[in-house]
């Protein structure tokens, strides 16, 4: 009985645990701005549904205007970091706020560095 329990636990552990060979794990964010951006993203994810529903009440012409004003106040009362507009797509490696290509989530400088070293799959220097 105990052996069976162990086996089950072993199976679960094996699937979750990383291998014995060390892999680089990012344990720190590049800077505090990146950390704040991460927090904003998390909050926006939590409040996304509520914001959507309250906005649905606000942005229609069927419901009475008083209801819509109440909804306005409600959505303003939500925490500031919960709105998705405050999220900034920073570079993932350098936290650069500008010059970030959305597809790769990298700033232009990092992108160029990797592309020149042939570490970006399918990316080639343009020539025409």
């Amino acid at each position, binding site marked *: *009985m*105990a052996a*069976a*329990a*162990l086996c*089950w*636990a*072993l199976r*679960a*552990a*094996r*699937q*979750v*645990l*990383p*291998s*014995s*060979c060390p892999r680089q794990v990012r344990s720190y964010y590049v800077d505090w701005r990146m950390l704040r951006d991460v927090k904003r993203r998390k909050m926006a994810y939590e409040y996304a*549904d*509520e914001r959507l*529903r309250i906005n*649905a*009440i606000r942005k*229609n012409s*069927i*419901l*009475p205007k*008083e*209801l819509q004003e*109440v909804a306005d106040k409600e959505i303003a009362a939500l925490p500031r970091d919960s709105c998705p507009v405050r999220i900034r797509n920073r570079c993932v490696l350098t936290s650069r706020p500008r010059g970030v290509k959305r597809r790769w989530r990298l700033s232009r400088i990092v992108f160029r560095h990797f592309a020149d070293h042939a570490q970006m799959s399918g990316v080639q220097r343009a020539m025409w």
Partner: protein
Amino acid sequence: MYKAARVLWYLCLLSEVKLPSRRQTGCKQKLFSTSSVLSKDKDKSAASKDSPPEGAAKRQEDGAETSKQQLLDIIGNMKVEVSYRKKLQQLKASENKKQAMNKLEGLDSEGSVPQGITEDTQRDKPLNPELVKAASAVASSLPHNKKQTESELLAQLRRHEETTDKQKKGGTINIRNVISEMTVKRQSPAQWGARISGRISLQDEDGQRIRPDRSSAQSMDSRRSLKVGKRLNIFTKASTEPEHALKTVSSPTIWDLEFAKEVAAVTAQPPRNGFEEMIQWTKEGILWEFPIDNEFGMEDDAEFHEHIFLEKHLEGFPKEGPIRHFMELVICGLSKNPYLSVKQKVEHIEWFQKYFEGKKELLQEI
């Protein structure tokens, strides 16, 4: 009688034997007629062992023919000559011989079985002369290629002999085992209990003691007939497994998990090649599973009508007014949304319900 049955069985088999295309219909009719005649004949006699093949014969319902009288006479004679008692005696004699052989050779029954089988087949390879006679008669009765049919019949007879001998072998050994086991085995405690309970005196209302012997004897007999004998092991005990399964699921402790993690960390080898690396990535979730299924992670078991017809969730809302209008629009939008599960849609509607219930006073002012 046994041999008659066998011959008839071969006849039925023969009817399925391939015939040349020229005379196909005529021959088949004749074959079926013979088999039907023979089956009728057999029906008059006692029932035989080979019942399934005769079902095929009994299907045909053609009339009898006079040209088969010879065959019938032979079979009738066969019935008179060979009685079942003789067959039994033969069987017992063969059993005794086999038992003697087995005792001489040793305890290992498996080793002795194949040898016994080969010996029996060698013994019976020269088939019974009566059977041969019957086969020749049948072949002669059939319209074409008598020699070929006769040889085929004899070959089938031989095969049949082999199979029956093998079966007999198996039967005799089982019986022997059962008998031997019966002598060694003591009475089970259940039987002791029965005896004791039988001894407990059954008393009438008057207090007169009923003789327990008769009842105990009867119960003993019935019990003996039920519990005596070697276990057939047909039914396996599957009842204990689910209990074990339940126990294991509920009990893994934190220490067990930690130990398991340690063991996994120690035993996990670095991947030897790219395939193992990819397997590891798949387990960790980095790599998708191929072939890619678009609904990975989405376990929506709901039918389409649960996604589209959402009006039943609108029961908490007033039936008229702007709110109802608004909610109908919401439902229309949700029914067109393929990305949400039914649960999420229901939650959406319920949230609105709560919200509007909270705003009831405000709404009544308006």
